[in-house]
């Protein structure tokens, strides 16, 4: 499934404050009772967005100013906690193509990359600038230039970090590795034949 390369991501952005935002926060476990990922977008950040009765709380994701945003901005260690892909799936299905944070938890980063969600690490100071800009003017177009590792908004341009492997996979459209893994089948058999515990029916 070679996908289309992702060279840049553009759109409006919304800020969800906080460090250590864990996957239970991104999608509470009770919404994981499902056998497909369809519809998960509705439950993104549910407990911070909704009261126990299901009414909207004041939150940027409920604010019409930020409706239609496709880039999520947050703090450090974003996506820590469980390995559930439900978290990036909820983010993707709520319409986001990219997350800009201080840093990402490892499994979350890998899961997101496989789905084609660009996870960009920007410094605290640069993110502050970005957040100030979009909060003052929510219609600001934010562009994540994957090739040059720059985020442009208004008159600003800030650098971001991304793992080289992830960058390469976005640029070549190979972020979903399944095809390439399938191509390695004969090499897999060779390794399997060397391992005693892999033998048997």
């Amino acid at each position, binding site marked *: 499934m070679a996908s289309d390369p992702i060279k840049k991501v553009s759109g409006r952005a919304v800020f969800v404050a*906080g*460090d*250590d935002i*864990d996957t*239970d*926060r991104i999608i*509470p*476990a*009770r919404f*994981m*009772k*499902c*056998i*497909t*990922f369809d519809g998960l977008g509705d439950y993104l950040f549910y*407990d911070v967005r909704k009261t126990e009765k299901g009414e909207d709380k004041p939150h940027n994701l409920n604010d019409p100013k930020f409706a239609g945003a496709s880039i999520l901005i947050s703090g*450090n*260690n974003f996506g*820590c*906690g*469980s*390995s*559930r*892909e*439900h978290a*990036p*799936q909820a983010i993707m299905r709520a319409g986001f193509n990219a997350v800009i944070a201080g*840093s990402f*938890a*490892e*499994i979350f980063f*890998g*899961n997101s990359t*496989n*789905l084609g969600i660009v996870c960009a690490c920007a410094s*605290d100071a640069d993110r502050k600038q970005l957040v100030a800009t979009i909060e003052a003017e929510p219609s600001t177009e934010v562009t994540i230039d994957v090739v040059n590792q720059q985020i442009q908004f208004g008159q600003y341009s800030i650098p971001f970090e991304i*793992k*080289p*492997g992830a960058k*390469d*996979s976005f640029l*070549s459209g*190979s972020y*979903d*590795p*399944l095809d*390439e*893994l*399938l191509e*390695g*089948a004969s*090499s*897999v058999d060779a*390794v*399997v034949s060397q*391992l*005693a*515990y*892999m033998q048997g*029916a």
Partner: protein
Amino acid sequence: MGKSLFEKVWEAHSVRQLANGQTQLLIGTHLIHEVTSPQAFGMLRDKGIPVRFPHRTFATVDHIVPTDEKSEPFSDALADAMIKEIRRNCEQHGITFFDLASGKQGIVHIVGPEQGITQPGTTIACGDSHTSTHGAFGAIAFGIGTSQVRDVLATQTIALNRLKVRRINVEGKLGPGVYAKDVILHIIRLLGTQGGTGFAYEYAGSVFDNFTMEERMTVCNMSIEGGARVGYVNPDPTTFDYLKGRPYAPKGADWDAAVERWSSFASDPDCAYDDVVTIRAESIAPTVTWGITPGQAIFINENIPAAENAKDAAEKASIEEALEHMHFIGDTPILGTPIDVAFLGSCTNGRLSDLQEVAQYLRGRKVADNVKAIVVPGSQGVSMIAEQMGLDKIYKDAGFEWRGAGCSMCLAMNPDKLIGDQLCASSSNRNFKGRQGSPTGRTLLMSPLMVAAAAVEGKVADAREVFSVHEKQTALA
């Protein structure tokens, strides 16, 4: 120069390098459960791709299983659909499934070791971050996302970046009433919840040499809470003794060959590590979390941190957020905080030795009024042996509810949930906001005996005093 276990296992399972520089890594053993696998089977079905090595995937149900209902259909229709889906997928693809009627069902990280599926020198993956538990056997074991579950089903491999290795030595002797849970909570407190990012943790030193397999599993389990995707202990005679005679362990002449092979994977004495940390066992006291990340932990006799003492603005903000959620006041003791619920179970501390250790102190004691206390064995295997030993009676006499096997209130995908802002003393591994089923619910992580002490006293207490713990008694004596 020698090699670490991580390097040896990695090299033995490397298939090839991928275009983006990642390694295509063979996953020898694949474990699945009902929450993160159905979507993966769906993706294969859509593409018409078969399961490549069905005999190397093993399945169970744990997260959604009610612990107080015995028969299907479950009263929760979504949970019922999920168990039927995994059953159907396993049947269709010829995958071994430890179903509810098998007597072997339980939390995936308890079932794998118990059945002898978890073995040294192997790679193990599961769509669950606590897969690091299996590293206790000297395996490289890690959690994966659902797309990677698909990749393993389709190819028995995943694309992965190589990790660095940090050796963590814990040397000396733990004091009475100080457990494996305290060791890992202390490590996370010291190194931080992100400290392990990019690392595999190799746990070593005299404390680990003397630990039982179940204690090693408790520590490896929570590696991920410290940011490390993988945590392991080198295999040794303790490991081999545990595995001998288990259903999926090699038998006869194969056993001797396996032990020789397994031993060869242990880290060489002269291997290089990317980092080494050494901790004195005597410096560790019973530890309790006070906040909303597992790193927000203190010794039982310490005060809850105050925001004004934070070292920087980020720490100040996170202390404030935690205090607000927990309804705690900075610079006050955690000792004596009234609790509402006591939960004993989970893949961290739901094993037989955990239940035995607590039971020997709980005999003749009573859970405080106003405290709801539940004990949830990690597997049907654990509950069967515990019942043969009469442990269920000790717990019930003390006022605990004795439940069926599953994840239960660790993440509350089944009916066991906190209500409102209840405060729970919990032997599980995560204290995130909302983790135990109520968005405003509050969790204090601690060792099983500390959970029992809190249950008996109705408030956070020092188990060493509540139960007059002097010399550490061995659970399996």
